[in-house]
């Protein structure tokens, strides 16, 4: 029974991943894509967690912790980019 549930979970997570990917690809704006990336980080955590249950191995949980801690740094960087690029846009660049 649990195995089926887990497979359903995997299916749901995979679909979510695809949805996130679609958003990432169609954008249209950069922040839209960043949100998609952020979402994918959550999916990743959920996926890893489910996989721990699936394989009865808890060693992957650390990977989930790292994603939780680190992924937002990437988002922060993007946010900064969005802002900085805005501020710099009056520089006379090519």
């Amino acid at each position: 029974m649990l195995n089926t549930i887990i497979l359903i979970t995997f299916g749901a997570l995979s679909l979510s991943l695809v949805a996130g990917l679609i958003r990432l690809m169609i954008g249209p704006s950069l922040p839209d894509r960043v949100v998609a990336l952020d979402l994918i980080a959550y999916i990743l955590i959920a996926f890893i967690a489910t996989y721990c249950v699936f394989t009865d191995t808890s060693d992957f949980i650390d990977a989930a912790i790292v994603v939780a801690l680190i992924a937002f740094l990437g988002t922060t960087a993007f946010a900064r980019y969005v802002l900085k690029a805005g501020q710099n846009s009056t520089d006379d660049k090519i």
Partner: protein
Amino acid sequence: MSEIFIAILLLSGSFFVVVAAIGVLRLPDLMMKMHASTKAGTLGAGLTLLAVSVAFDEISVLTRVIATILFLLLTAPIAAHLIARSAYYVGMDLWENTIIDELKNERAENNSATNGVTAEMNSKEESDAR
């Protein structure tokens, strides 16, 4: 017994993740996508993590799961805040049903200096050479 718990946690967790994903895919503007992603995403990930702690029933796993959830709760809103704030200031289009914008003065101030990027952020077809 615990299997049922695990099943419920997994199903509900993946449900919220799916919700977040659909939200990101379907909702009309950036702000609203972020509502979906941040809340449902955090919740979904958190629930599946809890499933792990139930499945293993070890203190070391439990503490790590809790730590992960704490980290998520700490970081998710900040990420959302930063993205929303940045996108807003460079002129992100809001949904047509947005009935009020009390921050628009500051945004306009900021915007006068960021025309170029505004266009870039909103353009549907940004392209440079490949």
